[in-house]
C-alpha cells in the first residue's frame, strides 16, 4: 500500500474554486445549524458528558454486554454471527445470500461494510449490490469512496451528479436540477427493492444489549425499505456499537442528528429486534481491529465514535481538502485517529493534516479528545520511523540548537539577515512559506539585543509599583 499524500490531494482540491467554495460553505452551514440545535438545548453539555460516560462504561464492560445482546437477540429469533475480520464478515454475508438464491442486495449506508470492502467481494461472486442512500449511490456509480460519513457525495456539485447519472442510470445529462436527479434515483432504485430475489442490508448506529435491538438512523427511508420489503434482513454491526439499555438511547438519539446535520432527529429512527412475519433477521457482529484498539491506552476512546460527522463539518482542514484527500474509509479528524490503527504506514500523513485547533473535540457528542489523540499519533508516527530522513535530521538539529543558548543566539541573530536577501531567493518553489504568503520583515535587532541595551540588571526598576 502506498502512503496517502494528503498535501498533494489537497492542492488539487483547492485549485478547483467552485468546488472548494461550495464544499467549505455547505459544511460550515451544517456546522452553524448544529450550533443552533446545541444552543437550543439547555442540557446539551450534560448530554455530551452522559454520552461519553455511557460509552466508556459500555466499552470497559464490552464482553458482558456483547453476551447479553446476543442472548436477547437469539431469544427474539435473530440469528447472530461473529466475524473476527473483514474477510469473515464478507464470507458470512455471501453464504447467507447464496444459500437463499439472492442475486441483489439492497443496502443502506454502512461505514462498516465500506471498511470490509464488501461490495467488490459480493460483486465478484455475482451478487449485485445496490446502495440505496442517494449520496452513497452517487459514489458507488462514480466508483469513488464516500468522502463524508453522513453526506457521501458532499464534494460533488449537481452538475457532477448529472454526469454520473447520465452515464449510469440514463438521466438527461443537461438537467442538473437536484429534484430531477433525486427523482431519477428513486425511479431507478424502486424495482430493486421489489425484486423477489433481493435481500436487504443495513448497518447499525446503536445496538441495545437489554433488548437485543439494532437501531438505524436514516433520513431517506431507504433502510426501512431495505429491511421491511425483502424477507431477509442482514445487519452488520461493529462491536463498539453497544449501549446497555433503552433508557440510554435517547441521550444519543437526541444528539446524533443535531450534531450531524443540525436537525432534531433523523426522519427515521428505526429499531429492529426480531424478524418480521415469514422473514429472517441476521446480525453479523464484527471485530476487525476493534478489540486491538480497545487495548490502546491513549486511543481506545475513539471507539466511542457514533459516526455523526460533526468533527468533519467543523474541521477547517477537512472543509478545504475534501474527504477523498484522506485516502481511507474514514476522513477528517476522526479518520486521522482511526485510519492509522488499520495501517500506520499508509496513513502516517493524516495526523499531520490538522492544525490541532480542537474544534473537533468541542463538537464531538461523545467527547472524544480527537485533537489530543492526533497530537499523540504524531509521536507514534515518529517513533515508528514513518517520517522522512530530512525531517528527522532537521528536528534532531533543531532540538540541539534549542537546548543550547549559545548556538541558538548565533542563529537567531543570523535570521535578521534574511530581510536583505533578493526576493527571488526568498520566494521560490522550495520555500513553502513564501509560495502564497509574504515573509515577515526582519527587524534591526532582536528583543534579546534590545533588552541587553535598554534594561541592564543594574538599572532594573527595583520596587517600582
Amino acid at each position, binding site marked *: 500500500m502506498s502512503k496517502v499524500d494528503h498535501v498533494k490531494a489537497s492542492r488539487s482540491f483547492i485549485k478547483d474554486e467552485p468546488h472548494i467554495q461550495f464544499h467549505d460553505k455547505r459544511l460550515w452551514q451544517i456546522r452553524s445549524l448544529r450550533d443552533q440545535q446545541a444552543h437550543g438545548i439547555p442540557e446539551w453539555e450534560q448530554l455530551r*458528558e452522559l454520552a461519553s460516560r455511557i460509552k466508556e462504561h459500555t466499552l470497559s464492560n464490552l464482553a458482558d454486554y456483547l453476551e447479553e445482546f446476543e442472548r436477547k437477540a437469539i431469544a427474539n429469533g435473530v440469528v447472530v454471527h461473529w466475524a473476527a475480520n473483514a474477510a469473515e464478515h464478507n464470507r458470512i454475508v455471501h453464504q447467507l445470500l447464496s444459500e437463499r438464491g439472492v442475486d441483489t442486495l439492497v443496502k443502506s449506508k454502512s461505514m462498516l461494510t465500506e471498511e470490509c470492502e464488501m461490495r467488490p467481494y459480493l460483486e465478484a461472486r455475482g451478487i449485485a449490490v445496490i446502495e*440505496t442512500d442517494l449520496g452513497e449511490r452517487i459514489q458507488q456509480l462514480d466508483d469513488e469512496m464516500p468522502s463524508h460519513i453522513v453526506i457521501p457525495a458532499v464534494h460533488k456539485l449537481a452538475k457532477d451528479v448529472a454526469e454520473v447519472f447520465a452515464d449510469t442510470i440514463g438521466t438527461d445529462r443537461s438537467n442538473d436540477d437536484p429534484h430531477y436527479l*433525486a427523482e431519477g434515483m428513486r425511479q431507478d432504485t424502486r424495482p430493486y427493492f421489489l425484486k423477489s430475489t433481493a435481500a436487504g442490508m443495513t448497518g447499525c448506529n446503536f445496538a441495545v444489549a437489554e433488548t437485543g435491538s439494532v437501531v438505524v438512523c436514516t433520513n431517506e427511508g431507504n433502510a*426501512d425499505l431495505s429491511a*421491511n420489503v425483502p424477507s431477509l434482513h442482514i445487519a452488520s454491526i461493529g462491536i463498539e456499537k453497544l449501549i446497555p439499555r433503552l433508557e440510554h438511547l435517547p441521550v444519543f438519539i437526541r444528539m446524533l442528528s443535531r450534531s450531524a446535520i443540525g436537525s432534531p432527529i433523523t426522519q427515521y429512527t428505526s429499531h429492529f429486534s426480531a424478524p418480521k412475519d415469514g422473514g429472517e433477521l441476521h446480525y453479523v457482529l464484527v471485530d476487525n481491529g476493534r478489540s486491538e484498539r480497545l487495548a490502546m491506552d491513549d486511543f481506545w476512546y475513539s471507539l466511542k465514535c457514533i459516526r455523526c460527522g460533526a468533527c468533519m463539518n467543523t474541521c477547517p482542514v477537512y472543509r478545504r481538502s475534501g474527504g477523498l484527500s484522506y485516502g481511507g474509509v474514514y476522513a477528517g479528524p476522526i479518520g486521522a485517529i482511526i485510519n492509522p490503527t488499520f495501517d500506520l504506514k499508509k496513513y502516517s500523513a493524516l495526523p499531520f493534516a490538522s492544525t490541532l485547533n480542537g474544534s473537533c473535540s468541542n463538537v464531538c457528542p461523545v467527547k472524544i479528545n480527537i485533537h489530543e489523540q492526533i497530537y499523540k499519533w504524531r509521536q507514534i508516527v515518529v517513533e515508528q520511523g514513518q517520517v522522512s530522513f530530512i525531517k528527522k535530521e532537521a528536528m534532531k538539529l533543531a532540538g540541539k540548537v534549542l537546548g543550547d543558548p549559545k548556538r541558538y543566539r548565533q542563529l537567531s541573530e543570523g535570521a535578521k539577515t534574511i530581510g536583505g536577501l533578493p526576493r527571488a531567493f526568498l520566494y521560490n518553489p522550495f520555500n513553502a512559506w513564501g509560495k502564497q504568503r509574504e515573509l515577515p520583515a526582519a527587524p534591526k535587532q532582536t528583543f534579546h539585543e534590545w533588552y541587553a541595551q535598554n534594561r541592564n540588571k543594574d538599572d532594573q526598576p527595583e520596587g517600582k509599583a
Partner: protein
Amino acid sequence: MTNRDAILAAVRQKQPASCALPKVPLFDTDLPPTRAAFIAALGKMGGVWLEGAGLADDFDSVIRNRFPSAKNICSAVPEAEGTCRIESIDDPRQLDGVDIGVVRAGFAVAETGSVWLSEVQYSVNALGYLPQHLVVLLDPADIVPNLHHAYQRREFFTARYAVLMTGPSATADIEGVLIRGAQGIRSLTVLELPRSSND
C-alpha cells in the same frame, strides 16, 4: 475456539478497567405543552398537521380532500376504509402501487415531532414506506414530552420493529438542496383524532 469465543476472549482481555455507568435524568422540567410543541416540531421536519376532524366525520372524505388524485388508499385503521384493507395484503411488495397509506400512531414525541409506529400498527411494515404518501392518525393524549419519556414506553420492549418517524422521507445529498420524498413517502400528514373508546 469458535469465532465468537475468540472475539469475546480478546475483548475481555483488552477492555480497560471498568468505568461507572451514569444515571440518565428525564430532563422534563419546564417543557412546553406537548401538543403545541409536537405541532411545531412536526412542521419543522416537513410534516403536515391536520386538525378539526371529529369522530363523527367521514375520514375517507377527509383523506380524499387532501389527496384528490389518489386512486389507491390502503388503510390499517378502523376509522377509514380506503380502497383496500391492510389485512388483504400478504406480500409487502403489493403495497408498491399504493398512493396513500393510513395508520394510527402508537404514540408521539413532542420534542422531535415524531410518531411511533410498529408492526402492531402497520400489520405490514412496508405500509410506512412503499406508498407515495402516509396519513397517520394521532390522539393528542398519546404525545409524550421528550425522547427520554418515549424510551420508557413498554411498547419499545415488545415491538419486533419500531420506528420514530419524523416527517417524510428526505435527502439533501445533492448540493444541500432539501428534497422531500427520497426513497420513501413524499409527504407525511398527521391527522389529530382521539381514539374511539373501544380502540
